[in-house]
């Protein structure tokens, strides 16, 4: 007798809905065992991870701040992935957006430039991110280069370019040669929404992006085109949809969104341009996009959930002295279960009874 995975005749919509819940359930069971082995009270630990951050306004703000760039980038990526264009380089587009936007901030520093500075920074960041994303898109369309490879490699180029700027021409002249620009002027920073907090305008922009993506995908021909090109390229060709054009478009949009996320992070929580402005947002957003099933609302929830595990992980470190590695294990286990449970959408378990040959052998 053995257990085999068998392909379903059609995808199971029930499983598609419950699989994230099964995954979270299994994660909680696994973590409970792990906490018990570590000698920590599992209930208190799970409370620190999941409940405590949701119970005060400070942590809720922090979750929103952390989720903002993740959601914004992941929305853009989901458009690419739906259209079967594999943009892996959002991290680089994030950085170039941050650099492009910072250019205005650095150039107007110390002048009495007016309130046009921040909007101009956002526009330039979007343009920078989009142009940077167009490099791999055009290489794919014109020369058939793998966009996975080119977009990924351009991340390192962007990283080093930023590095060069803050060590060289844009370095804070009063900063003892440390690699950072001077703090941005108030007109070049993203306004806070709550006095004394860290929640900023960027979170609102992220929500608008989610809404716009939902409308685009659900209500417009373009959105339909994106989904058809991704799901059934041959049918799309017969339908007269131009998949090359769509690669260019989705890359540009996702680059622009990553770029805006970049400048918001720099002009918001960080306050100046420096190396290391992104703790891997562009890569984590790939996880967020898939965790949210490439659906705008799903991405919003996934982004908030991932942010929750970060904030909760920190609080568990402080309150329970649980090492950071456990948080990472926790995130890994969660992803593992999500992917594993997702396979049940298209497959199902089946018990295979012993066949005749085996049965004869036992006589």
């Amino acid at each position, binding site marked *: 007798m053995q257990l085999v995975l068998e392909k379903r005749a059609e995808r199971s919509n029930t499983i598609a809905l419950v699989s994230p819940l099964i995954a979270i359930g299994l994660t909680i069971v696994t973590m409970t065992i792990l906490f018990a082995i570590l000698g920590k009270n599992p209930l208190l630990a799970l409370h620190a991870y999941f409940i405590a951050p949701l119970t005060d306004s400070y942590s809720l703000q922090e979750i929103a701040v952390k989720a903002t760039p993740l959601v914004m980038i992941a929305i853009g990526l989901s458009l690419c992935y739906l259209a079967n264009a594999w943009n892996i380089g959002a991290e680089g587009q994030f950085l170039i957006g941050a650099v492009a936007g910072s250019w205005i901030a650095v150039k107007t520093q110390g002048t009495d430039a007016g309130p046009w500075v921040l909007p101009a920074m956002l526009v330039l960041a979007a343009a920078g991110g989009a142009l940077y994303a167009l490099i791999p898109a055009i290489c794919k369309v014109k020369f058939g280069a793998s966009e996975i490879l080119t977009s990924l490699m351009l991340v390192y180029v962007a990283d080093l370019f930023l590095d060069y700027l803050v060590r060289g021409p844009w370095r804070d002249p009063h900063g003892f040669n*440390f690699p950072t620009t001077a703090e941005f002027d108030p007109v070049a920073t993203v306004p806070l929404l709550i006095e004394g907090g860290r929640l900023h305008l960027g979170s609102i922009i992220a929500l608008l992006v989610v809404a716009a993506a939902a409308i685009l995908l659900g209500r417009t021909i373009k959105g339909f085109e994106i989904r058809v090109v991704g799901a059934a390229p041959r049918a799309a060709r017969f339908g007269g949809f131009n998949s090359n054009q769509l690669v260019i478009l989705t890359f540009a949009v996702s680059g622009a969104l990553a770029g805006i996320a970049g400048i918001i992070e720099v002009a*918001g929580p960080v306050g100046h341009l420096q190396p*290391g402005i992104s*703790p891997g947002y562009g890569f984590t957003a790939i996880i967020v996009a898939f965790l949210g099933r490439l659906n705008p609302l799903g991405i919003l929830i996934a982004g908030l959930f991932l942010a929750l595990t970060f904030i909760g992980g*920190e609080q568990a470190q402080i309150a329970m002295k649980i090492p950071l590695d456990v948080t990472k294990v926790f995130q890994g286990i969660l992803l593992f279960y999500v992917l594993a449970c997702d396979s049940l959408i298209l497959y199902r378990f089946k018990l295979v009874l012993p066949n005749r040959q085996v049965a004869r052998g036992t006589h």
Partner: protein
Amino acid sequence: MRKSLLALAAGLLLAGSVSAASAADKLKVGFIYLGPIGDLGWTYQHDLGRQALVKELGDKIETTYLENVPEGPDAERAIEQLVRAGNKLIFTTSFGYMDPTLKVAKKYPNVHFEHSTGYKRDKNMSTYSSKWYQGRYIQGLIAAKMSKSGVLGYIGSFPIPEVVSGINATILAAQTINPNIKVKIIWANTWFDPGKEADAAKALIDQGADVIMQHTDSPAAMQIASERGKFAFGQDSEMIKFGPKTQLTSILDTWGPYYIERVKAELAGTWKSEDTWGGLDSHMFAMAPYTNMPDDVKKIAEDAQAAITAGKLHPFRCPVIGQDGKEVECKGGANLDAGQILGMNFYVKGIDDKLPGK
């Protein structure tokens, strides 16, 4: 089975009530770490300092740390999390935490902050750092004596003043032994990345370097030097176990005494915002035993250490000649002054390399 479960439950309850009772009157002290506490370098040494603190004052304080906190947008939140968890004195142990620490410090005027290796202070934010260039000077003497090829290999992290002054001190010392000494420098652009550090060490050895020095935090370079039969200096911590026949000495960051002193001040209510920049004389760092070298070299090192500790020898004694051949303005009388060293942005003569960003 049942008995043990009951005992466990009772134990949990007991532990819970004890910690609840004592937590109330203990001073909470928090730490923000750049790397994992097991990096065996920078963060490891800060954690040893924390452990020394717990050993000394464990009945009066409770310590908490957050490790692997990136020097970006997450740092401010991590620091604020510690404040919100009730920590009254918080040590942020890397340069990149400077602005986030300052922001949180302005927000919580009743909490005291200590930032390592930065230059911004406030009435509730101190800074502390060490004159590591003194140790680099001693290493330069040893390196010049031990190198047969006359080429030293130097793995830099970032071209910031602390690192540049270390390179300069090394070369100035080495030139007193061998005026033609050469140094090859590779910038790893990271504080901690064992893979990159190992690659840098291999490249330097391939270019003829036979003594490897590093300003990055992992023991990877030491291991490579050991495999290739070269010499190397440790960094931050005692790395002799990674190269028993390789390590000449190591600059050991000894934060314990400083942490104990500052926490005692906090407990006594006498904590003030200060700028501490300590050297060999104030035990902010120490030299690991001088090993794998002949006695005469060891004597040179020990003499230099004694002279620096006594204030008789200054690594940046004037005249200091810059790479361009011009004499550097001497603002400190007989030596370069503190500001010139803390903001050092030039190479001295004899370094055949270009400072990045120049």
